């Protein structure tokens, strides 16, 4: 054996493999273990994390108060227009409203050391209804879903002047129910990340000129992730739906995410 490179090559060749049957059995065991942990301790962790730090407490309270004030019928303004009016800043809040999806309640908070990002999630969702009427409504507004990103999802950019109308439409349907799921605060130039338990994750970077650059990752099963870059201008929102894969059957569960960025005055 001549030199160190020969050793490295040999080590790569003399490698172990794993038994596929055992792989499957252990994965199944891990999944069962995850089910057991889902119910225990997460809510307790949230309370401990929120309450141990006074700044976290303040931010959490502020977010909750704004949510209560914000859920009112709109007439073309942003969700929290009465708070945001004409305020510009480097601070962006992203609201993700998840519609019609049954997921377990999940509570999670993470605070970065420099306090530049606060992430709060709460999942509480309801069963679905027909989606085709929403698509017809959007088409009538000149908004079409795009499907290039992934075969498992569709997305559409909702301009700011249509957002209020969309919200009114959704709120007028008794079978839809809107719940705040995630709220992320991030400063200009700093990225924030959102993730859901149903295959979509978003990295967002707000800029001073009130645009928001998003990298949206759609999980494509075994193929991994498709990442699509989307730019939102001030007030626009992003609507993501996963019903593309179930085109020919009526889904009993449809997932929609409405991601609404808002520029607020920096605290």
């Amino acid at each position, binding site marked *: *054996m001549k*030199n*160190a490179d*020969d*050793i*490295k*090559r*040999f*080590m*790569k*060749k*003399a*490698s*172990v*493999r*794993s*038994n596929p*049957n*055992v*792989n499957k*059995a*252990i*994965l199944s*065991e*891990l*999944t069962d*273990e*995850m089910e057991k*942990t*889902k119910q225990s*301790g*997460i809510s307790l*962790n949230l309370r401990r994390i929120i309450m141990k730090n006074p700044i976290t407490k303040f931010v959490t309270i502020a977010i909750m108060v704004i949510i209560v004030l914000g859920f009112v019928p709109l007439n073309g303004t942003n969700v929290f227009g009465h708070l945001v009016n004409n305020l510009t800043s480097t601070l962006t809040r992203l609201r993700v409203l998840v519609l019609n999806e049954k*997921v*377990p309640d*999940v509570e*999670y908070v*993470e605070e970065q050391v420099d306090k530049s990002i606060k992430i709060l*999630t709460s999942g509480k969702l309801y069963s679905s209804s027909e989606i085709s009427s929403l698509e017809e409504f959007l088409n009538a507004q000149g908004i079409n879903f795009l499907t290039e990103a992934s075969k498992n999802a569709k997305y559409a950019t909702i301009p700011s002047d249509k957002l209020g109308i969309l919200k009114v439409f959704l709120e007028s349907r008794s079978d839809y129910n809107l719940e705040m799921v995630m709220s992320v605060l991030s400063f200009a130039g700093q990225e924030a*990340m959102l*993730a*859901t*338990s*149903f*295959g979509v*994750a978003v*990295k967002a970077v707000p800029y001073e000129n009130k645009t928001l650059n998003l*990298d949206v*990752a759609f*999980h494509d099963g075994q193929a*991994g*992730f498709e*990442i699509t870059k989307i730019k939102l201008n001030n007030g626009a929102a992003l609507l993501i739906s996963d019903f593309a894969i179930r085109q020919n059957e009526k889904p009993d569960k449809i997932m929609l995410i409405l991601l609404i960025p808002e520029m607020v005055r920096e605290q």
Partner: protein
Amino acid sequence: MLEDRILVWRFKNGSKEALAGIYEKYRDDLLRIAASLLNHNSAAEDIVHDVFISFVRNRSSFVLKSSLKAYLATGVVNRCRSFYTQKERNSTIENEQIETFESGHQRPEQWIITNEQTQILNDALQLLPDEQREVVVLHTQGNLRFRQIANLQAVSTKTAQSRYRYGIEKLRTLLNGKVSL
């Protein structure tokens, strides 16, 4: 890397697909590391199994600070070190009482599948000092960077690189004539 961050996010939010993604991505590397460090397949299988179980159980408190792979590999290495310690302790008692490690999990099939070359390599690795073996295995088979290995061993990067050089050189001597490429 973004994909790992996304996987961890989804995993922490209860996604079984994300758990499967992490498991599929890193399982074989961890098995390879454990098998090479210990040269004891059933112990290696148990250790990797325990690392994943612990990862799932501590899901809510887990924070991804750097590399997910390095985090999981650290779990494997720490458990391997405990195994060495226990084995040494047992071997000093009485020769007749040397413990043969019994797997905590009874599997009808073996998880790790090796070949003759693997066995020759692992036998040779056992003749290296523990620290050198760790660096050689983690760098060559785990593809960890020296900086990551240095953090794990609580030494400088230069020391880790030096251990690697000595380890590879000794391996070359041990394997010379026994195998060919």
